[in-house]
């Protein structure tokens, strides 16, 4: 068998692990901390059934009801009437449910609402006056439009990170979203338009 574990045991030890510069502080602190609260840990709160959650969505504090299994996407769409993020795939492969959590683009379809407490959630609806949707309109980067909100949020997040993106970078950077109508060419144009100053630039 070719895949025999030929390496000796790592030889790596807890001592090595704790001897790290930052890790001494990090792991060490965790150790003492957990020891201190060992009893308390056994009583960690286990949630089940419907909860009332306080979320921050598009700059507003809102209260929603969610079970642990409720996704952020369900909460946005069924309770907050924020239907821009779309349910397209049960997994995270289409990008249609993209929202920003603490500034990062993520698929709301695979994020649990209960985990979003204390986070800053921004949906496409918060981008009403943003240069990205304006450029999408100017470049006709949409057809049926079902994927468009996800693409708009993804493009915003991508450009936040790469404000001077080149065409090559755009072509490499926006592959987390699927469009069935085939608007990709104009999405590229729209992203580059924003780089160059936007629809009015």
């Amino acid at each position, binding site marked *: 068998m070719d*895949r025999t574990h030929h*390496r000796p045991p790592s030889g790596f030890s807890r001592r090595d692990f704790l001897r790290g510069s930052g890790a001494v502080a990090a792991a060490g602190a965790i150790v003492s901390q957990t020891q201190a609260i060992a009893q308390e840990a056994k009583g960690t709160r286990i949630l089940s059934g419907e909860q009332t959650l306080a979320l921050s969505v598009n700059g507003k504090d809102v209260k929603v009801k969610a079970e642990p299994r409720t996704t952020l996407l369900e909460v946005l769409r069924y309770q907050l009437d924020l239907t821009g993020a779309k349910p397209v795939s049960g997994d995270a492969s289409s990008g249609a449910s993209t929202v920003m959590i603490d500034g*990062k683009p993520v698929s709301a379809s695979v994020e649990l609402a209960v985990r979003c407490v204390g986070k800053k959630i921004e949906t496409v609806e918060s981008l009403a006056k943003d240069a990205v949707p304006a450029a999408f309109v100017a470049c006709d980067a949409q057809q049926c439009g079902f994927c468009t909100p996800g693409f708009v949020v993804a493009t915003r997040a991508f450009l936040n990170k790469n404000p001077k993106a080149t065409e090559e970078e755009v072509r490499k950077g926006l592959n987390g979203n699927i469009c069935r109508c085939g608007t990709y060419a104009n999405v590229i144009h729209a992203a580059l338009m924003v780089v160059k100053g936007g629809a009015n630039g």
Partner: protein
Amino acid sequence: MKSFAYASPTTEGEALSLLAEPGEIEILAGGTDLVGLMKKMIITPDLVVNILDIPSLKTIEQLDNGAIAIGAAVTLDEVLAHPYLDPYPAIGQAIEGISSMQLQCQGTIGGEVLQRPQCWYFRGGRGLLAAGGSAVEDGDSRYHAIFGNDGAAKFVSASRIAPALIALNATARVIGPVATGGSPVGLNGEDASERFFPIEQLFRIPRHEGERESVLARGEFLTHIILPDRRNFASATYEVRQGAGPDFPLAAAAASLRIEGGIVREGEIVLGQVAPTPWISRAAVAALIGQPVNEQTAEAAGLAAVTAARPLSHNAYKVQLAKTAVKRAILRAAGQETGGF
């Protein structure tokens, strides 16, 4: 999704306590894989333990010996951007290959390494071993294993980063109850231990439906991936990806090579997407040791890597792809043109 209870510990110790609860338990990191599987009711836990609120799992630290400890809950985009990882391009290239900003920002390195197989029979509800392997044998095996497939398991290990981590001799830190065999660490009173072991030992080929593709026992979880100081190695990952999107590669390889005086002195070559585990190829390394890296030696190493391949009815083409992935990972590690896209 079936109803489940949820807990979000803030320390490793708390997490261990929760993992000792009765019933089926799943650890939730980024969620990009697990939530989808729960929606399809392929996985139906009673309790989900979120590990993203544990600060020690969310850092990348340099240890005194030059090693780098990456917390299991660090997201892939953070790993990609971190300067500590600059000397190890194999890891960054594997993350870049995932190609979806969303998956990179949401997914964690621990979750990526331990994600469940993509096998369409598994995901179609036929079990991890796909009816004892018969569903694959009688069915469509185009994306299945060409190595390690003589048992019931025909799926391929899904992780795209694990081959690079193995090639770079990474170590896994796993904590769990004492009964799982680690060294007691005093977390959680007495019933806690930790183990450090080569990361390839995280993976196994399951022999029956009761086994998963990782060795983690009930109550255990992966907390860190520790990269030893391998700055004197050149490394690369090459994935054969049909398109620019996050679709899984058809074959992949990672190489780490110590090249001195133009000659390969030592190294590791690990294939991905070809076997139920990441597939370490001693033969490929052996073919390369003592040689300079060039088109011919890389090709020979690629050939050596696939000599023992045993394709199934629909995936003979993967032998050629695996060979090419090895060849190109070697060339890329050495900073040479791969000759392809």
